[in-house]
């Protein structure tokens, strides 16, 4: 069994984001790309995967504008009158990820369009870097 270096883990996903890299893993058997990266392909049930760097380009496939925030988003300033947008981005390379959606008006969610082309914008939050996307 090949062990990926660094291991495909939650930690490695966030460590790569700190380097402003979106790293997924690709199954050598079926070619499926996993982002967040996985150490085992659940389709082939096989651990022969390799790292692939993915381009931060894709489209918005679903979203919401959140007014009632959990504690960590409240602490980031998102009180009821300052909503934020969460969404799913389907990358051009295949996988879909959860991300903060930036550069849109969270107070006018009816104007946000599914299908909008998006490009990555890394977000520094406390000691972490998170995935953000904004309209391309």
């Amino acid at each position, binding site marked *: 069994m090949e062990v990926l270096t660094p291991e495909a883990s939650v930690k490695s996903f966030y460590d790569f984001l700190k380097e402003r890299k979106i790293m997924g893993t690709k199954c050598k058997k079926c070619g499926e790309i996993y982002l967040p990266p996985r150490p085992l392909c659940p389709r082939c049930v096989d651990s022969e995967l390799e790292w692939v760097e993915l381009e931060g380009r894709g489209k918005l*496939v*679903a979203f*919401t504008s959140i*007014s009632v925030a959990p504690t960590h988003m409240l602490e980031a300033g998102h009180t009821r009158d300052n909503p934020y947008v969460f969404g*799913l981005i389907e990358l051009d390379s295949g996988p879909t*990820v*959860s*991300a*903060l959606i930036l550069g849109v008006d969270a107070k006018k969610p009816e104007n946000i369009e599914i299908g909008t082309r998006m490009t990555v914008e890394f977000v520094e*939050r406390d000691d972490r870097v998170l995935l953000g996307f904004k309209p391309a």
Partner: protein
Amino acid sequence: MGKLARGVALIGAGMSKFGAFPDKTSRELFVEAFIDARNSVDNGIDNKDIEAMFLGNFSSDLFEGQVHTGPIMADWVGLVPKPVTRTEGACASSGIAIRCGVMAIASGLHDVVCVAGVEKMTNLPTSRVTDTLGAASDVSYEFPVGATFPGLYATIATAHMKKYGTTIRQLRTVGIKNHDNGKLNPKAQFPLSIRDLMEKRIKKLKEKGGEAPSWRDEFDFLEDPRANPVVAWPLRLYDCSPITDGAAVLFLAAEEVARKYTDTPIHIIGSGQGSVQLALHDRADITTILAAREAAKMAYRMAGVGPEDIQVAEVHDCFTIAEIVATEDLGFFKPGEGGKAAEEGVTARDGEKPINTSGGLKSKGHPVGASGAGQAVEIWKQLRGEAGKRQVPDVEIGLTHNVGGTGGTCAVHIYRR
């Protein structure tokens, strides 16, 4: 495969009042539900007959700071030293407890078991409840970028609206319908119709000497951000089930002993459970819940019935969009037609397919770990003709559909009089 080695029946079902009870903890709610369930057993039931308990509970850990809650519940109702097993599948915790009870009896291990659910949620402020429910999403990848439970269902809603043209009005219709039903349920947390809520608010504003808003109807009221603020667009407050304290208790028995307890047992003829990737971003399609489709397929096959045979159903309406998706996943309507069916009144109490006659999680309340067992309480009442003013006439076959989180777990059960 897929068959029970022997038949299983529901011989009793009860619940506590659902609501916000600042002076009660899980154990008092549980005792209340246990007594209500015991009173529902026609010929009575003695604790010595109950061989084991399966307890659904999502997170007494985070809500009450109490782990290992099973033995407490067993003790408080006098079931110690019998085995008690806690099951956790987020909001499907007691739906899967029902399945555990069914398996325990069908296998021959036990003749009579108690299946229950309990949750005490209202001790925490809303932001901490949001955190705790958020812990049932993918905390490594969804939660850090701001996902909340309403947010994830709202995300499902925007995808469903885009793919099928489901409308905001259709979402609101589900809430209005469930409140109309819940109004007739004395155990409901909010036994009020949306119209009642609207009129109550007008009265209150008038009393304060303020200008009374001129809402045309319930829909107009529901679009007013002062009356119905956005939680996660397009979901507003009245698209979301409330934060609730409550418990529900069922007694299950092997068919061969069931008649000792009642002449009108409710037979559990189908049981199914499924899973799907926890994070929405890992799923092939978020407009449907694969776990629910799988659970339904299993349950229908075991029961030898199809969606067309179901006469009354309690489905997991934690959010209005969830009920629309549920009615499609269960095969009641084609994908994309659930919203339209709600709008046309098909799922109303007097419609062709009455859904959530109890008021659903929306109006009855959603003490997450107790909700699955609570659904079975309603089906027990409906199939025995004991649902009072909300009774659907002459129903023989019912179904419960209990979803955990955004669908990572789903349990479906089918019942026959």
